[in-house]
């Protein structure tokens, strides 16, 4: 393998480290300011940054650049070089140094903004790693491991990547100077840690703890709680009478309540929410709803939402259910057993007026009528009741 190519590994991370390395350099007697712009991602797709086969940096990386400036307006030329050191702490392991290296000498006044394409071909741009013995060291076994991981997985291995950089006074204005500038004066330095949380978005855990699927309650301000390893967005959809599954409600209805925890509503954080009384759409009695929580995973390809399983909940005072509980639980035999099964998890059956009225021989009954009827039936100890369930 071409030593220079070897030297350019581990891929974009080292080169990114070079990009990231511009620090607020302080010239001798001349302040140097460096600003590094980049985004933090939970998941990083390596192939967006490097070509794995050629181990070359992708020249088209966007959103990452370095600006170098000086407060001395009269400064016309300033030659510097940069020392970079990269540490890697993979998930579950201890911190290890991956590499350290020096760049060549360059005039920072001529190159105030540096981007990835400035480093895409090793040794071919004005700023690159310095050739010559002693200028570059790497932990080859760790590097090999990272290479192996990258070959198998398109995303960066989860872990912490710490970059420490120093801007040093160049010992000459010769950009091809190969002498190791280990004793050069340090004009400034900085360290940054990039944390890659997940190898894939699928690692993000999002689950609703409360309410349980199929549950019902009578109050109009229930409290939802969830567990998530990512910031969440919470949505409540109304389940209409023609919806026959939670999915129907998610895709067919408009959200009742949407709360975002990231960026938009900074006051909303945490793992629980009580349905707010000032919500634009309030919860109503005798309506069914579907709750879903989405965890947001930031990747360099954009945000990926990890959704929880949807949870159906109903708002009802369940008067009729309680009447029937009291009545049928006193019966022995199949009617009582059938009813008990219907009411228990996972059926969680409740009387539901939006589906139609309670009728006796075709005539509509109010709740009071029904209670009176049940009271009347309960007096007959010889009564034989057949109970059936019709699916509609």
């Amino acid at each position: 393998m071409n030593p220079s190519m070897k030297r350019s590994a581990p891929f974009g991370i080292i080169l990114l480290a070079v990009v990231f390395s511009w620090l607020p350099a302080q010239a001798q007697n001349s302040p140097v300011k460096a600003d590094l712009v980049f985004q933090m991602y939970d998941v990083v797709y390596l192939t967006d940054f490097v070509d794995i086969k050629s181990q070359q940096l992708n020249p088209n990386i966007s959103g990452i650049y370095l600006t170098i400036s000086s407060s001395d307006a009269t400064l016309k030329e300033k030659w510097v070089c940069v020392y970079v050191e990269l540490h890697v702490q993979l998930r579950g392991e201890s911190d290890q140094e991956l590499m350290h290296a020096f760049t060549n000498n360059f005039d920072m006044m001529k190159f105030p903004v540096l981007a990835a394409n400035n480093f895409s071909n090793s040794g071919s741009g004005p700023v690159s790693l310095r050739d010559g013995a002693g200028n570059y060291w790497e932990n080859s076994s760790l590097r090999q491991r990272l290479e192996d991981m990258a070959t198998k997985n398109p995303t960066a291995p989860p872990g912490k990547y710490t970059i420490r950089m120093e801007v040093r006074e160049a010992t000459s204005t010769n950009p091809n100077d190969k002498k190791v500038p280990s004793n050069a004066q340090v004009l400034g330095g900085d360290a940054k840690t990039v944390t890659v949380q997940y190898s894939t978005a699928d690692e993000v855990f999002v689950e609703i703890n409360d309410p349980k699927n199929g549950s019902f309650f009578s109050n109009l301000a229930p409290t939802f709680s969830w567990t998530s390893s990512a910031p969440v967005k919470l949505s409540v959809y109304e389940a209409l009478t023609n919806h026959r599954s939670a999915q129907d409600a998610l895709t067919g209805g408009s959200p009742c309540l949407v709360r975002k925890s990231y960026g938009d509503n900074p006051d909303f954080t945490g793992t629980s929410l009580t349905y707010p009384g000032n919500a634009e759409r309030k919860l109503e009695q005798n309506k069914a709803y579907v709750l879903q929580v989405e965890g947001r995973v930031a990747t360099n390809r954009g945000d990926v939402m990890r959704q929880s399983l949807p949870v159906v909940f109903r708002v009802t005072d369940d008067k009729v259910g309680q009447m029937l509980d009291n009545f049928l639980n006193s019966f022995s035999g199949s009617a009582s057993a059938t009813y008990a099964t219907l009411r228990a998890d996972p059926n969680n059956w409740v009387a539901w007026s939006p589906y139609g009225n309670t009728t006796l021989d075709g005539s509509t009954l109010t709740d009071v009528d029904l209670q009176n009827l049940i009271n009347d039936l309960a007096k007959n100890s010889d009564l034989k009741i057949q109970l059936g369930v019709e699916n509609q």
Partner: protein
Amino acid sequence: MTKKIVTICVLVLLGVLSLGQKTQQDKKDISAYIVKVIRDVNMKSPTTGWQKAVPLSKLKSGYEVQTDKGSLAMILFADQSKLILREKSTVTIRGEVQGKEILSRSVHMDRGNMIFNVKKAETEQFRFSSPISVASIRGTEGGYNTGGSADFFTISSGLAEFTNSISGRSTMVSTGNTGIADSSGGMNIRKANKKELDNIENGSKEGGDQGHSAGSARNVTVSGTIGFDPSPSVGNATTAKLDLSPTDTVISRVAFFYRTKGTTQFTQADMSLDGKIASVEVPGAKIQSPGLEYYFAISIGNHTLNLPSGGSGAPGSVNVSKAVTSSTSGLVTITATPVFNPSPVRSFTNIQSSLDLSSVTATLSGVTLRYRRSGDAVFKSLALTLSNKIANGTVPGIDVRAPELEYYFEIKLADSLNAEILLPGDGASNPMKITVPPLTRIAPEFGLLKSKNVGSVRVDFSSLQANVTAVSLFYRKQNDQTFTELILTPSGQVASGQLAAEKVRFPKLEYYTSIRLDDGSTIFIPEDGASNPEATAVQAIQRELRIPGQTGSLQKKVLVLKWSE
């Protein structure tokens, strides 16, 4: 007074049908009987041509029944399921039984109008079909009409599945609804209208549907009376007559069983039948005081029913008059036989009293009948009309009450002393007696009684020869403690009213009737009133409670509760 239909044939048929089931487990054709025929009804088997159908005609699987214009037929199955075919209807019956279990049963109606009352079976479903539709029924009452471009299937009680055979579309028809299947495959359901429901109720009444129980003996009456001609008197022959004209069934034989009151052994005499009137002469030697006890044995097919229904255990009775001797006045002693008609005496029916004194040589100035109800202190006086020495008079029905009428005669002689002779001689201290049976012939007629529905009742008291001032029905649901009084509204000699729905409950309604007379007395029928009331069946109704509901996965599931009450 409405004719009361003798339900003997029904009882017989039930016995025949239940006895007809073999205990063996081999499969056989289902059988049924035509129990009522009005006008022209024909039937045919798979192997024979059309022939006239008569009551008790037996039907088997594959048999067809056809009614003509203005005609009606009632078909009864072993489980008491009933079909009433109205005019211009044609049906074919099919089915199979195994032992006592009905395996399958269906009726195909090519055209016509049918009322049905199907008893609920554990497993078997009764199927009705036509060229357009099919109905599956279990424990349901209703009507089925086919023959045009649409079939109408009405349920008055219960629930049934109704399918359009052309399109396969199906619907459940519940109580008070009508399913409509048309020849284009359409299927609709709507509320049944009054005409449809009345048609079913009237059909049920016509069939004499009294609910689940068979008629009791008290409900069996013979219009035209049981009669003895002449009124039995000691040593004189009399002809016993039984008029069975209202009976629609064929009577093969009537036997008359009789004995002198106070003895144990009955004598049997076969009666001659002239149409529906049976008669036999009872020899004079068998007519003895104080009375004759009797019952009739009526043979229908292979079965015999008794009238009164208690047979030898509770026979009817008729008084037998005997000659009595008076007291003596001077040289005059009178012996005569008082005769009372009708015979047998009926309570609250005027009694014609006749005393033949033509053998008395003395001149008579007057005859008075002195009588009282047993238990009364005072005798009433009835001046008899004397013509050719035969004294006649009428005891008003109001005074003719169970258990007895006590009486004696005062015969005045047209002599200088206006002597009075008592017949019998002891007069008031030892009067003669006529046994008067308790009043049973007044029976309320109920409309079809369905549980928790208002019921109608009427009482025809026209046969009472007494002035009625008020009629009440005391009723309660079975096993209740207290009776409710319903004061009936009179219209002529019929009083009617409506029973409160909450008191009309399956299985039975208990009741007794109270009739107040213009003398201030009140009679109860039965006479024990509240302590021994009558009972009539109340048809159970199938109730269905439907509660739509939702499961936790948004599925719609309807809870359906059914019960009978």
